């Protein structure tokens, strides 16, 4: 895989990619959008491991409201891919029980906004089972859930609750930004023996989104990372990706915001280093630290609300480790601390203008 980066690649990027991705260069690739890549990851894992099962509301015959599980039931059978009752605490609780038996469940929560009823099973159970049973029982489950806004979904189809889970010890949090990464990361998450939340930025299911809602939408067919190996490969959890190497400042982002940042940086003509975190827990601290020490500036961008968001953690950690290298205060660009609105969606969304203003601020004395 030689040309998977979203923007200008760099040697560092390619090397990091090669190191963290375990597929052969010679693999045949095919064009996939993010949904197809996610579907392919589950399909391959179900082929390789009879203990992998897929469950959730509408995921069976219908193939999911976003079609992410389309065809899986027909191929792998109803006892391995099935619809569930509409009870998120039930879905996760049952997945924990199946995991205790020895299965490797991949439950879907239809929208991340509906994960809250499952909080107790996720936080008190899945995340704590290994610890409290001294490893007798574990929760090798991967919870997939579409998250984030930009689709006029109103307050219950738009939220980004990742910060709730990164705060809870014992659970991993993964957020892909491209079809290529989605597939490799999902395979790694499914193989991982700890519970993992896999949040899928639904705004970029069909194509990268640069944050300009009034421009024609893109699809993945022309994007380098829309070329996805058809077979098995994985991207190690806990490894960030430098999507654009640069010297002027470091931008930490994940999911949809990686693409928005990339577009803004290109437009502003700033030599930013953009890091796609890909995994929030565990965090790739080496890549972050090396970059910020090199650039001396750090901007953090996420769509989630600001207060106690994951950006707060990133800001603290960068400050702790890179304080003497910083030439400007760390900038956080986030969604506002309000519920996700319906009609004023684009005033809420941390788009090009908000990022652009923050860029000006952080680069003021450069």
């Amino acid at each position, binding site marked *: 895989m030689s040309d998977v980066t979203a923007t200008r690649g760099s040697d560092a990027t390619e090397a990091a990619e090669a190191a963290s991705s375990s597929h052969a260069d010679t693999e045949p690739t095919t064009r996939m959008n993010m949904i197809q890549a996610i579907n392919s990851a589950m399909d391959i894992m179900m082929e390789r491991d009879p203990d992998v099962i897929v469950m959730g509301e509408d995921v069976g015959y219908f193939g999911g409201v976003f079609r992410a599980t389309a065809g899986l039931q027909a191929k792998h059978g109803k*006892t391995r891919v099935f619809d569930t*009752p509409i*009870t998120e605490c039930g879905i996760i609780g049952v997945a924990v029980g199946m995991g205790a038996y020895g299965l490797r469940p991949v439950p879907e929560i239809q929208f991340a906004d509906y994960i809250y009823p499952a909080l107790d099973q996720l936080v008190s159970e899945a995340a704590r089972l290994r610890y409290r049973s001294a490893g007798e029982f574990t929760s090798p489950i991967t919870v997939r859930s579409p998250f984030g806004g930009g689709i006029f979904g109103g307050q219950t189809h738009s939220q980004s609750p990742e910060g709730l889970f990164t705060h809870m010890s014992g659970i991993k949090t993964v957020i892909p930004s491209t079809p290529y990464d989605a597939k490799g990361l999902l395979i790694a998450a499914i193989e991982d023996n700890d519970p993992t939340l896999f949040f899928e930025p639904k705004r970029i299911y069909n194509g990268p989104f640069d944050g300009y809602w009034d421009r024609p939408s893109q699809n993945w067919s022309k994007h380098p990372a829309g070329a996805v190996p058809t077979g098995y490969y994985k991207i190690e959890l806990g490894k960030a990706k430098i999507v654009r190497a640069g010297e002027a400042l470091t931008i930490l982002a994940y999911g949809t915001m990686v693409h928005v940042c990339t577009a803004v940086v290109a437009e502003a003509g700033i030599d930013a280093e953009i890091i796609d975190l890909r995994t929030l827990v565990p965090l790739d601290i080496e890549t972050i630290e090396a970059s910020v020490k090199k650039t001396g500036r750090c901007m953090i961008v996420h769509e989630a609300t600001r207060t106690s968001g994951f950006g707060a953690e990133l800001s603290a950690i960068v400050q702790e480790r890179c304080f003497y290298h910083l030439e400007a205060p760390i900038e956080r660009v986030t969604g506002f601390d309000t519920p996700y609105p*319906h009609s004023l969606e684009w005033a809420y969304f941390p788009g090009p203008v908000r990022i652009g203003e923050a860029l000006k601020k952080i680069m003021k004395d450069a």
Partner: protein
Amino acid sequence: MTMASEHPRANLQPLTLHIPEPKFRPGDAVDFAEVDVPPAGEARRPDTADKASDFIDLAYTLVRVLDDDGNAVGPWDPKLSPDVMRRMLRSMALLRAFDERMFRAQRQGKTSFYMKALGEEAVAVAAAYALDYEDMCFPSYRQQGLLIARGWSLVDMMNQIYSNTADRLGGKQLPIMYSVKEAGFFSISGNLTTQYPQAVGWAMASAAKGDTRIAATWCGEGSTAEGDFHSALTFATVYRAPVIFNIVNNQWAISSFSGFAGAEATTFAARAVGYGIAGLRVDGNDALAVYAATEWAAERARTNQGPTLIEHFTYRAEGHSTSDDPGQYRSEGEPNAWPLGDPIKRLKDHLIAIGEWDDDRHAAQDKELAEQVKAAQKEAEKNGILGHGLHQPLESLFDGVFEELPWHLKEQRQQMLDEESASGRPWDIKA
């Protein structure tokens, strides 16, 4: 400690996992012969003072009033005046016309989302007529019929659907997630079944205060799986809360048939039995049966007999929402084959059978209602449609997070206004 070895268990029968499967999938011919439809008038009507445990059978049959010939029969006939029945018919027809037009508005790009109640109009409309206007409703997203039956302004509803400048919810909520306190209509949540325990809480408060008002709540059959459903029933039975639980069993929950909520094993009304709550299973396409059941349950609640759970057996004749294509997962033959018919036609046939209505008046009414909805739409669109200029003032984005804005939200609001003046961008999509 070791696990039992595999040997001693080798003779045992292997377990199998049961996965429910609906009778019909796309392309299948539909025959609902297996759906048990008892004759109208057959179910008994207990006294409202009877103990719940004395009429458990009513959770497993169907309370039906209207028979196939349009007659109202049996002990549940609410004996409504023709005038009330004509008003009920009109409300159902208005709801259908409203749904039709707003569904189309979404298709025309005027808003982001819409959900119809096609085929289940009787459930909300007849209940609204049986309840007092002062009783508090905690609906799901498919009971817009409550507002329509309570005479709420269509223009006001449309303003919400369009998230326009006159939207009483300030563009903050997804279309159709109304909130109309004045009409006893609680703010609809996008998260399923959260309204169930809330209705119980409202009812408990009313009882604790010595009030006379009761609460009613609705959820779909799929939503009965949520934990909130079961919490609500537990509280209600413990405190004998004056609340009516309605389960709208329209057979489908998006693409999942009712079997994924437990319908292969028992009825939804039977959920009441385990909690010691009064349970009724009702023909949901029979407006008179819905009215009678609601009236009976309300009487129980008002006389401190506690909660009643009513399963309305009906059919979701349209897709789940504008985002759904039911052709992907169910047979197109289902809606027309549904054995309980069309609720509007059934009440209309009854009124005709008793000489209180006729086809010409019905056709004229349909025309009039279509015009009424069209006029309302025109009026509402003067206030804007989603994403086409007329929207709420930007700073209103921060209203209502708290009663008073803390410093950090004030800062963020200023930041947003600065962004707008820096960019000169109007924050909505272009036409």
